[in-house]
């Protein structure tokens, strides 16, 4: 069982010579096509390097340009030469100068001997491929492409547009169904001979000369007319990236390539010495294992994913998404609590005992950054410096969540805190925001300050919280938002606390929930009434009945204070 190799070469000719020698010395004839634009001295060097091997010959040279007929013409000439000169060849294998055989030739020959009548060529109808890059798929076969995509991109695009506008179409020759596939195939002598000696070949050639990228469709379509048994896959391992270029293999892919059991791989970096040394050194043939590209496929899929979607919530030097293209504004789900520390002074301690998460205090407090445990430096060396935090608050938050993304982050918020991130939080699907509205008043209620100050502060905080609630209730919200009024929440705090805990993740699910100690709200209704009496309308707390009068715990006597 003899297999003959066609090699299409244009650069790195010294590597091509090495590979050709490997095949020829193993007993396979080789026909080399060298791009007629390759530098003369390199071509001469290539001839010299293989001149001692009479099973290596050179075919007529064409100037090959990607996407054009020239590649097919070069292949046809080389194939014809192979069939004419080497009658012993049963299979013809099309390879490039950047291909590297991964298994000894004897293994490939044994494999082909088991499949003597099979044509290994990826060949899929246009409707079924999803991998074409550039937006031209069916139109490859129905439009004409006389202009070079590489050199005259504007003419190319313009002519395509023109044909589309005038509804130009042409039909493939009768009986021919266009198929697409990898340009690297291995055909039986019989199929190849039938294709090249087909009486209608002139007609086919004329058609394919105006097809876009015919090297991916000429043999792939014509094989369907002549083959007895098509195995629609390529024996050459080649993976394309999201830009439509073949992935390159380097020395560090050695083990991966070895374990793939593929016969030939492309594209190899010309200076990957270790790959060339390893795979071109003589080795015994072991078996006829089936090629398995799953591992390599996963690796390259992962690369495509990283290039196109990136890591959610990461902002860095080579990933800085525009708004709404973040693919994850933050790296992981997190919880924000507003109004809880006012109502439950021990809330942070309680939450960190109950929930499996990192519980920070008021990260955006105007006094200090309250990292969990009162630390002055947080994950990723974020510091508690207020100017640094406020210099870029969004970076502060996204960094914190990214740095400690294995733990669920929880932090407290209040209308007292700096709030540049309201819109960011509200539009982040990772955010879970729980708000007890008006709870800030509890803090004022317990404060021992002159009532005039309290009233002013109450008006300010109410204004800020109202603005914030406007954001949280807008139609753009993506966060999971829960809002209770203070009176609603106080009536039955256990149920909402339970829900929140479950979302954060409970440390010990079997334990019955013991809510944290709530502040004593006796007289709170009177406090609110007093605010009303001073001309401020507390709106966010809900209903608190006001039995009797109210005395400030700080001794601020009602009646004194400001106007307005």
């Amino acid at each position, binding site marked *: 069982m003899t297999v003959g190799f066609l090699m299409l070469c244009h650069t790195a000719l010294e590597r091509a010579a090495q590979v050709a020698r490997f095949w020829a010395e193993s007993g396979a004839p080789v026909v080399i096509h060298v791009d007629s634009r390759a530098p003369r001295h390199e071509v001469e060097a290539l001839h010299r390097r293989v001149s001692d091997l009479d099973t290596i010959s050179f075919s007529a040279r064409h100037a090959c340009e990607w996407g054009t007929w020239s590649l097919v013409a070069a292949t046809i000439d080389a194939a014809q030469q192979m069939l004419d000169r080497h009658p012993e060849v049963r299979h013809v294998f099309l390879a490039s100068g950047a291909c590297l055989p991964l298994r000894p030739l004897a293994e490939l020959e044994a494999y082909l001997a088991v499949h003597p009548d099979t044509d290994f060529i990826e060949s899929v109808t246009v409707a079924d491929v999803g991998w074409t890059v550039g937006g031209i798929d069916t139109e490859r076969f129905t439009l004409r492409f006389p202009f070079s995509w590489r050199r005259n991109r504007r003419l190319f695009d313009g002519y395509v547009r023109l044909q589309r506008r005038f509804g130009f179409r042409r039909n493939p020759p009768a009986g021919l169904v266009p198929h697409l596939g990898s340009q690297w195939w291995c055909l039986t002598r019989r199929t190849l001979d039938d294709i090249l000696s087909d009486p209608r070949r002139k007609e086919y050639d004329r058609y394919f000369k105006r097809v876009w990228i015919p090297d991916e469709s000429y043999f792939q379509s014509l094989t369907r007319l002549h083959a007895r048994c098509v195995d629609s896959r390529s024996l050459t391992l080649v993976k394309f990236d999201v830009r439509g*270029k073949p*992935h390159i293999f*380097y020395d560090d892919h050695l083990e991966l390539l070895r374990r793939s059991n593929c016969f030939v791989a492309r594209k190899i970096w010309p200076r990957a010495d270790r790959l060339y040394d390893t795979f071109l050194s003589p080795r015994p043939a072991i078996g006829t294992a089936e090629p398995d590209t799953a591992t390599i496929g996963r690796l390259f899929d992962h690369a495509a994913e990283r290039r196109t979607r990136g890591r959610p919530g990461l902002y860095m030097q080579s990933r800085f998404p525009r708004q709404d293209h973040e693919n994850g504004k933050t790296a992981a789900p997190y919880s924000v609590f507003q109004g809880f520390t006012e109502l439950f002074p021990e809330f942070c301690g309680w939450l960190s005992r109950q929930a499996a998460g990192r519980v920070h205090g008021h990260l955006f407090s105007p006094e200090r950054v309250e990292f969990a445990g009162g630390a002055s430096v947080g994950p990723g060396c974020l510091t508690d410096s207020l100017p640094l935090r406020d210099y870029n608050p969004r970076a502060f938050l996204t*960094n914190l969540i990214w740095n400690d993304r294995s733990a669920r982050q929880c932090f407290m918020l209040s209308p007292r805190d700096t709030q540049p991130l309201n819109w960011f939080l509200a539009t982040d699907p990772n955010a879970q925001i729980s708000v007890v509205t008006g709870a800030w008043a509890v803090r004022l209620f317990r404060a021992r300050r002159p009532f005039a100050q309290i009233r002013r502060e109450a008006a300010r905080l109410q204004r800020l919280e109202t603005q914030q609630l406007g954001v949280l209730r807008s139609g753009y919200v993506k966060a999971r938002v829960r809002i209770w009024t203070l009176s609603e929440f106080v009536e039955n705090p256990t149920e909402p606390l339970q829900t929140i805990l479950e979302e954060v993740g409970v440390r010990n699910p079997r334990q019955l929930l013991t809510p944290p100690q709530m502040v004593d709200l006796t007289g709170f209704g009177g406090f609110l009434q007093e605010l009303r009496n001073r001309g401020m309308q507390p709106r966010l707390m809900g209903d608190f009945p006001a039995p009797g009068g109210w005395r400030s715990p700080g001794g601020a006597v009602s009646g004194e204070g400001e106007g307005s």
Partner: protein
Amino acid sequence: MDRQRGQFRGFLHRRELRAVSDRTGSIRHDDVLCFVTLRNERVRLPYFLDYYRRLGVRHFLIVDNDSADGSGEYLLDQNDVSVWHTSASYRASNFGIDWMNHLLRRYGSGHWTLTVDPDEFLIYPFHDTRPIGALTDWLDTYEIRAFPAMLLDMYPKGPFDAQPYHEGQDPFEIACWFDSGNYMIRKNEKQRNLWIQGGPRARAFFARRPEEAPSLNKIPLVRWSKDQVFLSSTHMLLPRRLNAVYDEWGGEKASGCLLHAKFLSPLRGKVAEEMTRNQHYGASREYRAYGSGLETTPDLWTNWSEKYINWRQLEILGLMSRGMWT
């Protein structure tokens, strides 16, 4: 306009450079070239040159700004180094960038060029298994002309000069710690580059004036052509489309890091000298900040500092990315 000015400044300042050892004739057309401005870096040079030789850099083009510590003599003995001497002002030459732009234009056009300081060490994805030519070939495939590498400040645990650095030593045996996640990024709409600040310098020396914290964004590896100039150190390039080294649609482009071995024992002398010379950026405010900071808070290390292992660690931490190069 800025670009013409940059080119013109390079042209004006070219006369300040006197070739001491011009070996540029030995440069081959596909060599990766390294461009450096330095002053009194003798102790750092052996490791620096070897590091980049190992990556596959073929020729170094160095401006010696009047070194007095034997740097010039040492460089003369290196076969792959061309040296220009100048005693002109570092500050007047836009902190060396005018000199670099001139040499880049003259010798770098058509080459992949690496413009770094003697305390900056390039890390790119797979640098431990693939020479720099693998990266530049790959970038050429996609017609990418600029490769970003953020400056990552490295520091030792304890005072930065507790363990003296000796010649030929890997600086990251001593300064092996870094900040993994406190970098702040915003986009410079005018030049389209990202402006990155943060790291140990921002938190230790600029916590009260974050806007003055040093820029960490750098584009050191560039396929040079005559119409290009560096605008401000290697932070910004013109034409500005070269600054678009980041993805804006959620994906990640390939990037590296410049490990910055600044916080080592040679810094002590530098700070003292710069306080009087006043030749550095922003009226040397960075050095001034160290001058005060290095006496009061000499230890940059924190509980959250990360110890450097390899590029894969930097990638996992999100400081660099392989993009789709795999």
